[in-house]
Structure formats: C-alpha cells, structure tokens
C-alpha cells in the first residue's frame, strides 16, 4: 500500500462569514505530480496557506504521510518535509540571492552548531551555490534581490523552496512571468526533481505546463472541488471548461504552444 504524501480531508475555511474553501478532499500520492487549478479566486492559494500553516482550517484535517498536522505550527511543518513558493514573490529584499537560498535551508538545521557556525565557506553555502547553478542563476549570488527582474526573482523563489530538500514541494504559479523557453526548462528541471522522488503539488494557470508536468489535476471553483482526475482529460470536463478554461478552449493549440489558451481570443 502506498501512503499518500498529503491528504486533504473535508477541509473548509471561512473568513468571518465568508466561506473560501468548502469541504475539499483530495490527496497527493508519494512521488506524484499533482496540479491544483481553478479560476481566479477559487481558493488555491488559500489551500496552500492551509497546508503550510499560515491559516488554520475551519473544519477538516490535513495529513502529511498519514499524520494529522492540523495543530503543527507553520514553522515546524517545513521541518516535516514540505516547502513552498509564493505567488506574489516574497523574497527577502535586503538579502542577497545566495542568502535567500541559504535561508531556505533553515528547515534542515538540527543543532545549535548549525546556527552558530559561520556561513561563508561552509557546506551550506557551497550547496546553495550548486543549487543556483542548476537553475542557471549562478551569476547572481552576491546581488541584493530587490532590484532583480521579475522572472529571475520568480526562479529564486523556486530555488529557495528546493533548498529545504522537501519531500513535498508546493509551488504557487512558478511559471508566471517566465517566457516559453524558460517555462519549458523549468518543466524539465521540475521533472528532474520529481524523478528524485520529490512530490509536487503545483498551482499554475499555464495549461501547457500543467499538462506536460502533472499527471493528475484537482480543480477548484468557488472553494469547492469540481474535478479530480487526469490532466489529459481535464479539458473535456464541461464544468472545468466553463469555469476555468473558457468554452472555446482548444487543446491542440495549448499543447503546441505550451501556452494554454493562446490564440483563442483572436
């Protein structure tokens, strides 16, 4: 029996009287690549916030490898093996690129010695440099993040999450702001990560990426799950088409251009 890496069990979230997530259940198998998609305001980011512990769910349970983590504080969840990136870039603007990445390693520190050892020249730093190199960001390490272009910062977000060496990686729109070529190489990169056994849960609007990266999709609309199944058939679901992809969505085009709905409007 394969255990699920993450299982969401009847989770709801209200803000005041406003219900943002209603009784959503789904699970992410170990080593799986699952897409969490849905229209704007469907509750995807909120779901990420619930899983990572920024918010506490109003009802339901969240399990990581079978353990209920509902009462684990956010800071400790990352130590259980999950890391995430942020939709609206949340890098530390005054830290350099490499320092941002080293911050991502925090979850792996074990002892006081890890906190008290100087970082320069340490294995932590070397490891962060390697990771940046793999993403093609090795020319930047010393630069302060604040003034870097959007696309570059978006990639650093992903690298920082990876620095935690998570078993479950939550990515919130990782390809936003990247062009086609870069999106393609991001996909290759993530595939590599996945092959090493990392479980992926990805929020993304680029259907090309969703289809080529993930095998399984969960679709939310107004905080409710409206679809769960293969990414290859998701575009055939009438509910999904209407709520998310648009009635005139054209699969062929999306697949060719890696760009979702390219050309539909014109």
């Amino acid at each position, binding site marked *: 029996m394969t255990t699920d890496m993450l299982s969401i069990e009847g989770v709801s979230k209200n803000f005041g009287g406003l219900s943002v997530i209603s009784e959503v259940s789904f699970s992410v198998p170990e080593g799986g690549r699952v897409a969490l998609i849905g229209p704007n305001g469907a509750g995807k980011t909120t779901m*990420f916030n619930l899983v990572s512990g920024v918010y506490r769910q109003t009802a339901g349970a969240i399990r990581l490898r079978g353990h209920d983590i509902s009462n684990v504080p956010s800071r400790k969840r990352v130590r259980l093996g999950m890391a995430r990136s942020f939709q*609206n870039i*949340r890098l530390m*603007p005054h830290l350099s690129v490499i320092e941002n990445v080293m911050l991502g390693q925090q979850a792996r520190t074990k002892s006081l010695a890890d906190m008290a050892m100087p970082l320069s020249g340490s294995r932590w730093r070397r490891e962060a440099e390697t990771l940046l190199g793999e993403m093609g960001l090795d020319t930047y390490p010393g630069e302060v993040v604040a003034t870097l272009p959007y696309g570059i910062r978006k990639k650093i977000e992903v690298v920082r999450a990876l620095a935690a060496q998570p078993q479950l990686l939550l990515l919130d729109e990782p390809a936003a702001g990247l062009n086609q070529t870069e999106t393609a190489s991001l996909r290759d990169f993530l595939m590599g990560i996945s092959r090493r056994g990392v479980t992926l849960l990805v929020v993304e609007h680029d259907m090309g990426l969703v289809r080529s990266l993930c095998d399984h999709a969960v679709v939310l609309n107004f905080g409710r799950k409206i679809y769960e199944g293969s990414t290859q058939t998701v575009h055939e679901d009438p509910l999904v088409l209407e709520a998310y992809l648009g009635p005139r969505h054209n699969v062929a085009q999306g697949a060719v251009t890696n760009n979702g709905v390219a050309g539909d409007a014109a």
Partner: protein
Amino acid sequence: MLLLQQIVNSLMLGSVYVTVAVAFTLTIGILNFLNFTIPTLFMFAAMIGWALAYWGLPGGLTGPSYWPVALAVGIIASMIVSLVVERFTFRIMKTKYGDSTEHAIPLVSSLGFLLIIENLVRIGYGTDAQRFPGPSADLTMSIGGIFVRVPQFVSLLFVVVIVIGLNWLLRTSRLGRGLRAIAENPDAANILGVDMHRIVPVVFMLTGLLCGLAGALFAINYGEVSPQMGEDIGTKAIAGMVVGGLGSIWGAVLGGLIVGLTEVMTIHLFGADTVQVAVWGLLLLTLFIRPQGLFGHSAIGKGKL
C-alpha cells in the same frame, strides 16, 4: 471641590497635549511618518512670537502691545519651517528606495531637524526662559470657585473644530484619497498621477499651523516661552497619540486628555516625582494589552501571501 478643580486642571493641561497630538497623528496617520519636528515647530512659533514682541516688529511696530501680530508672524514662520522640513524629509525619502526600516528614514531626518531648529533658536535667543508679554487682562475665569483658563478653553474648542474639519477632509476629499495612497504605496500613487510634491506640503502646512497655534496659545496662557518648551509637550503628546491609537484623530484627542488626566491625578495623589512612571507606564500597559492603541488599526501589512 479640590478634586473638581483638579479635573478641570487636567482637561486644561490635556488640551495642550491634544493639539500637538493631533499634529502628530496627522503625519503618522496620513504619511506614516513620526515627525519629531512637531515639538520644535510648537516652540519655534512661540519663540519667534516672543522675539518679535520683545525686539520689535519690522515697520516700526515695536513694543509689547503688538504681541498678537508677533504671534501671527510666529505661526506663519512655523508653517514655513514645516514646509522646509517637508522638502528635506518626506520629499526625498519616499521617492528613493531606502531600507525596510523605511519609516525610520524620515523619522531620523526629522530628529536631525529637531537638533538644527532647537539649537539655532538657542544660538539666536539663548537658552533662558523668557517672559511673554501677553495680554494684560486676566485670562482666568472663576466659575463657582473653579478656575478655568480662557486660552486653554479656546484651544480645546478649536481642536474639536479642526478635528471635525480634518476628518471630513481626509475621509471624503480627493486630497485625502491621494494622501492615503502616497502613505501606503508612493510608487503606485505616483504612477496614477498623485503628485506628492503638491499635496504632501498641504499636510505639513497643516502641521505647522496646528503647532503654531498651539505654541501661540501656550505663550498667551503660561506667559513664558523657552527653547526647551517643546520637549515635554512633545513626548507627552506622543504618549497621548499612542494611547489613542496612531492615525486616529479622535484617538489623539482622547489620548491627549487621558494623559493630562493621568498626569494631574498622579500629581494630586502621589506627587510629581511619579508622573514619569505613571504616564509612560500607562503607555506601556496600553501597548502590552492593545498593541495598536485604543482606536488604532493594526499596521499596514505586506499583503497576502
């Protein structure tokens, strides 16, 4: 009877704090800027008023009886200085990308201005307290044996009028909206055409006006001015503003009065040597229990994840 008198005294004292606290909360609430020049502007208006009344006004208007004119000039001078401060604090800082202790930048340069203005006044007029040649009429009314000071009474009324006006201005006018936008995100405001160089000075003029008026009323009321007169009022007004909640104008009014009451009651019951502990202890407690003050809203966050 004595207690009643002390309560009246505390209202009178509070009224001085209130005006300055409103000036503070104005720049904090609108521009997110703790402007430490405010107590100096208060002092500046009064000192200029004194100097002109003492040494004579230009145009042959010499003699102490011209004190109202002198004070009016003092108020205008404090507005002008306030504009100079704007030129070198807010205008430069908010357009540049600074540190993320960002609110510290204008705050620190306003501390710089505090040093400059206060010491220039000292160089010009010495450090001594000076007698202000105010109105010869007795400004104390006795109502059923309770002493009430007319100027403080006037300033209390006056603050209420100003506060109502300000609230209206900030809630409903285009100016108010523009100012709020600048305070939160100067970059975005700029892109939308909010010209901070044009509207921010309005706030500073208002600040100068409030401080100037408070300083003038103080001079008339206490008959004495000095280059140090802003220090105590400044810190107590800040305390009042914080108790009330940053950025809430009515909060500043209430907070100023609470600080006045705390001070007078502490003196009455325990003596002035415990005032420092009482007032600042009250402030600390308020912050421990309600970190955002009585009427304050929590600080502007960075937005959602």
